[in-house]
């Protein structure tokens, strides 16, 4: 019997709980996963999204002002990041790419730490164990295997934590991501594959990576998957909670495709006008995740001026602290270049460090007498 790839409308349908106009949509399966989300909780999600959008804008500004070397904006992906990350427990562990600053915010990252990598002051901004989130990953897809291995460790420990890995639509083409699904399915590891399909991998449209919806990939590996409106924070929360529950109760991995849009450039070094149509951006602007939740809150009277103002104040405060932390970051010392390559002493490196320190010292004082040196 030939298995074909003709569209199965039901399969490809997006889970949506808030329509683009802000209307609450009911869903037979997923409503129950957000039944506890009351007005206050919705306001909190709103606050999160506004704050991280402000972080994104502030970081972009810092880059333009020369305070950051680079910044990968997540503008437009706030619902996918907040909805999923707010579903997590503290003891869950996140393995993300480079674009999940919104997720890092939810994990409680220090704002200065969030800037370190992008200012060029670190290769990893934070202590992964302090916030249970691995550092940014630049090698596309590599982190999905780490998450899977971590989840195998959870199984081993008999714990009910979950590993969650974030990656993009482009990443699904990498061998590593597919191998991660093989391992996750084989061991039934408690890992969630959270794919933010933001339609683009730098200049390449998602159609170059896949002719069928990405969510269809995982079932072929034996992993259930779900396609969710990635601009709907409630829907993202719901599907992530369901997946977490499955993982915690021995049900193994889940694949989530959050269909969203990268409204900005790939990074501040990119110029999207070279490859994409302005119209496309407009279409997606109409589905803006923040405006959408604001619509729902408004309709339910949950967005009075004092709430708006307070959210605004939070965002201002975060932005100010972010900027301050960024520009007052201490400069690293030359010797730092040699630190932590190994956890144990290494004769090759010690020799090089020793030579380099003498070399640096030679700029400060006249070269010392060679006989004295020789006696060392």
């Amino acid at each position, binding site marked *: 019997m030939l298995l074909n790839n003709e569209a199965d409308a039901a399969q490809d349908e997006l889970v949506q709980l808030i329509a683009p106009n802000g209307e609450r949509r009911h869903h037979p399966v997923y409503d129950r996963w957000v039944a506890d989300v009351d007005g206050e909780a919705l306001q909190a999600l709103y606050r999160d999204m506004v704050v991280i959008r402000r972080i994104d804008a502030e970081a972009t500004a810092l880059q333009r002002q020369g305070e950051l*070397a*680079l910044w990968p904006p997540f503008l437009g992906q706030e619902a996918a990041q907040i909805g999923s990350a707010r579903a997590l427990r503290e003891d869950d562990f996140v393995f993300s790419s*480079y674009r999940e600053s919104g997720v890092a915010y939810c994990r409680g990252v220090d704002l200065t730490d969030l800037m370190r*990598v*992008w*200012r*060029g*002051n*670190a*290769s990893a901004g934070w202590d992964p164990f302090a916030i249970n989130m691995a550092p940014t990953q*630049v*090698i*596309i897809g590599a982190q999905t295997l780490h998450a899977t291995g971590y989840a195998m460790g959870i199984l081993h420990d008999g714990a009910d934590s979950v590993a969650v890995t974030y990656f993009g639509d*482009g*990443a699904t*083409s*990498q*061998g*590593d991501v597919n191998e991660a699904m093989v391992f996750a399915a084989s061991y039934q590891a408690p890992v969630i594959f959270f794919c933010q399909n933001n339609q683009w*991998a*730098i*200049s*390449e449209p998602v159609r*170059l*990576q896949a002719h069928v919806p990405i969510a269809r990939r995982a079932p072929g590996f034996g992993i259930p998957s779900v396609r969710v409106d990635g601009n709907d924070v409630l829907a993202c929360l719901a599907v992530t909670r369901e997946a977490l529950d499955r993982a915690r109760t021995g049900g193994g991995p889940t694949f989530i495709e959050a269909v969203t849009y990268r409204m900005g450039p790939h990074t501040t*070094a990119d110029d999207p006008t*070279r*490859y994409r149509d302005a119209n496309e951006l407009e279409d997606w602007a109409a589905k803006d995740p923040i405006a959408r939740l604001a619509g729902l809150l408004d309709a339910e009277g949950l967005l009075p001026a004092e709430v708006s103002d307070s959210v605004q104040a939070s965002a201002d405060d975060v932005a100010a602290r972010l900027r301050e932390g960024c520009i007052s970051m201490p*400069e*690293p010392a*030359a010797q*730092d*270049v*040699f630190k932590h*390559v190994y956890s144990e002493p*290494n004769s*090759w*490196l010690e020799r*090089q*460090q020793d*030579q*380099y320190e*003498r*070399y640096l*010292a*030679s700029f400060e004082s006249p*070269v010392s007498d*060679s*006989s*004295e*040196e*020789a*006696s*060392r």
Partner: protein
Amino acid sequence: MATMTFGRAINAGLRRAMENDPKVVLMGEDIGKLGGVFRVTDGLQKDFGPHRVVDTPLAESGIMGTAVGMAYRGYRPVVEIQFDGFIYPAFDQIVCQVAKLHYRTQGNVKMPITIRVPFGGGIGSPEHHSESPEAYFTHTSGLRVVSVSNPQDAYVMIQQAIASNDPILYFEPKRRYHLKGEVDESVDITATGMGAARVVTEGSDVTLVTYGPLVPTARDAAVAASDDGVSVEVIDLRSLAPIDFATVEKSVRKTGRLVITHEAAQSGGLGAEIAASITERCFYYLEHAPVRVTGFDIPYPYSKLEFHHLPDLDRILDGVDRALGRPNSLSGLEG
């Protein structure tokens, strides 16, 4: 003669190669409409079409493996690896397939694949964007490896690489993409082989060997040294595997002193091979052990520290002093 940037010169060379041979096909991530993240393939898809300039899915092993298949079918793929640090997923296809197929099939299967790799540091990038992986490939039998240091060589050698029936790693020093130079587009690329090293500046006291990004730095060092009365002969290797040791040997027999500089980590780097081979070939001519001025044995550091890692003019001069046996920061430590 036209003045053009390094990147533009490669672009012109690619264009010329594509015009001359319809079997030349470019493959890579974002090389089409975007023209590559460094714009090296700018305009080529527009002029040659998406079948000659192929945007690929985001998978380096896939790119390299399909390039092998294209070569089986008689094509001459030119693969762009977006950044040095992203070549490793393709490592298996490169070392087990690309490098070996000609040998194992007794020459029946040719692998005329050119692998373009923007490499090296100095541009303030985050992790994995500043690697110098050349030594992995120079140690891989069956591959040829070249690196270019100026627009003219870039223009000529990209065409020579594409014309060669052997697989070639073509390393482009990314921090020099904006370097401008004269390019003679009328030059006959078949007139010279691709393997010859070039004496950049002649000198009599010390031989300074380098390639790619550090060639301009080495030339500056030679100028600075000459102010100090030291005559440095700078050699740009151009071909890293095989290395034109005859040219280096000739120079060292004259100077008796050898300094090698590269960005890659010292241990097991190309400098080791050069030092070992030249010591074998010129032992009785050497006045001092060959000196290596290289990156440290560390992962490439974050950008605020990269200029501590990268050899610069002063560190090269320090190396020249050491080769001359002059008292300096390391006096008494060696020999």
